[in-house]
C-alpha cells in the first residue's frame, strides 16, 4: 500500500512542483502515472524512493511512514522498492548477469544466494541465454529486461517504472509492458510512469493523471486523456 497525504514539494520559492497530492494505491495494483514533461511525475517517484523529502504532507509505504526517513534507513527502503528507468542504468563493463548480481553484492548477500536469485530472475525476464553478454551486445528491450531483473532481486513489494519504454521501439515496448504485467500478477505493485498514450490506453488499468503538480484525474480502467 502506498499513501500520500496532502504532499507538496518545491525546489524553488513560490513554485511548487507537487501541490496537495493525495493518493492511495492498494498493494498489488497496476497504476499508470501519466502527465506531460515537467508535470511532477519524476518528483513523485523521487519522493517514493526517498531521494527527495516532502515539504508538507506525509508519505506512507506499507506501515512505514517515510516522510522524515533518515539517511541510514534509505537503503532498506530501496530494497523494498525496485526501480527501472528509461536509460536502463546498466554498467557497461559488466555482463548482464554481473549487472543483476551487483545489486545483491553491494547489499552484502552471500555468493550462494546471489547465484540462486540471479538465475531465477534472469529466467523470469527471459535472459537466461544472454546472461554473459555485455549491455552493448543486446537490444534495448533486453537491456531493459536486465534492468527489471536487477530491480527484482530483492523481491520488492513495489516496482516503479519511470518511462521504461521511452527508448524502445513498439515491439520491445510491448514486451516490457507484458513483463511488467506478469510481475504484477505475482502480487507486486507496479507504478508505470509514462507519457506513452498508446500503452496506457491498451492496458485498461488505473490511470492517475498529473498536471502542474496536481492530480487532475484518477480513474479505474482509465485512458490517457491529457
Amino acid at each position, binding site marked *: 500500500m502506498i499513501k500520500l497525504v496532502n504532499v507538496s514539494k518545491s525546489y524553488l520559492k513560490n513554485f511548487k512542483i507537487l501541490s496537495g497530492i493525495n493518493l492511495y494505491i492498494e498493494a498489488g495494483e497496476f497504476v499508470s502515472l501519466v502527465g506531460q514533461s515537467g508535470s511532477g511525475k519524476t518528483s513523485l517517484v523521487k519522493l517514493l*524512493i526517498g531521494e527527495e523529502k516532502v515539504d508538507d504532507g506525509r508519505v506512507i509505504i506499507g506501515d512505514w511512514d517515510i516522510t522524515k526517513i533518515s*539517511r*541510514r534507513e*534509505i*537503503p*532498506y*527502503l*530501496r*530494497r523494498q522498492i525496485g*526501480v527501472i528507468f528509461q536509460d536502463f*542504468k546498466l*554498467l557497461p563493463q559488466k555482463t548482464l548477469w554481473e549487472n543483476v548480481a*551487483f*545489486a545483491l*553484492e*553491494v*547489499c*552484502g548477500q552471500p555468493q550462494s544466494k546471489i547465484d540462486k536469485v540471479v538465475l531465477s530472475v534472469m529466467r523470469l525476464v527471459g535472459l537466461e541465454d544472454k546472461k554473459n553478454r555485455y549491455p552493448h551486445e543486446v537490444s534495448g528491450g533486453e537491456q531493459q529486461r536486465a534492468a527489471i531483473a*536487477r*530491480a527484482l*532481486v*530483492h523481491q520488492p513489494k513495489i516496482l516503479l517504472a519511470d518511462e521504461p519504454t521511452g527508448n524502445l521501439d513498439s515491439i520491445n515496448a510491448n514486451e516490457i509492458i507484458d513483463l511488467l504485467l506478469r510481475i504484477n500478477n505475482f502480487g507486486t505493485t507496479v507504478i508505470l510512469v509514462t507519457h506513452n498514450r498508446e500503452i496506457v490506453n491498451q492496458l485498461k488499468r488505473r490511470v492517475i493523471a498529473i498536471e502542474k503538480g496536481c492530480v487532475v484525474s484518477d480513474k479505474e480502467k482509465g485512458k490517457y486523456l491529457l
Partner: protein
Amino acid sequence: MRIIKFSLQDISRNIWLTIATITILVLALLSVNTLLTVEVLSRHAIDAVKEKIDISLYLKVDASEEQITSLKTQISQMSKVKQVLYTSKADALRYFREKNKDNPEVLTALRELGRNPLSPSLVIAPNNVEEAPQLINEIKQIDSNIIESRDFADNTVILEKINDITKKISEVGLFIIMIFVFTSMLVAYNSIKVAIYTHRREIEIMRLVGASNSFIYLPFVLSAIIYALVSVVIIVIIFYPFLGILQPYLEVFFMDYNINIINYFLDNFWIIFGLQFLSVSIISVLSSWLAIRRYAKV
C-alpha cells in the same frame, strides 16, 4: 572481501592518480624522516659537546700527593660535581708525548729541556651542563695554595649555538612538514574526488539498489589507507639505503662518539614508521571523508 575488491578496482582504474598521490605522500614522509635524522644527529652533537664541557685546575709542580688528594676530595664532595679526574705530572707527560708523536720538533725540544715541564691537573666534570657557570664560581672561591691556574674554557657558548641551530632547523622543518601535510591532504582529497567521479554511475546504481552507506563509502576509505600503507613501505625501502650511504660520513664526523643512525631507525622502527603510517592514514582518511561527504552524497 567485496569492499577490498571494489577498493582495489578503484585503485587500478585510476592508476596514474594513485601513483601521483602516493608520490606526494612519499615526499611528505621523506621530509619528515630527513628532519628526524637531523634531530637525532643534532642531539648526538649536543651530547658530544656536553661531554667536552669540563673545568681544569692546573696544580703547582711541587704539590704533594696528599695535598692533591685532599683537594680532589674537597671538590668531589661538591653537589654540582659529577667526577674529578686527576692527571699526574707523569701522566700529563705521557699524554703530551702521545699527542705529539708525529711532531719530532716538539719532542726534541722537550728532550732538550731535560725535565718534565708539565703540571699535574684536576679535570672536573659538572653534573649538569646548565649548572657549569655556578660550579665555576664555586671553584673560583676555593682557597688552596697548590692551585697554579684555573682553565674555565666555556663550552656552553658552543652548546647554545648548537641548540640555536637545531631549533632553527626544527622550525624550518616543521614549516616544510606543514606544507607537505597540507599538500598531501589536497592530493588525497582530489584523488578520492576523481575516483568518486569515475565511479559515479556505480555509486548511483548502488544507491538505487539499496547498498548500505558504509558499503559505498568504505572502498574509498580503504583506498586511502592503502595509499598510506604503500607510501610508508616505499619510504622504508628508500630510506634505509640512504642511511647506509650517510653512516660512513657520520662515523668520520662524529669520530670517537659511537653513533649509528641505522641502528637508531632499526631500534625505533615500529614507533617511527608505525606513527607515520597512522598519521598518513588519518590525513588520507580525513581527506577522503571530506571528499565523500561532498561528492558521493547518499
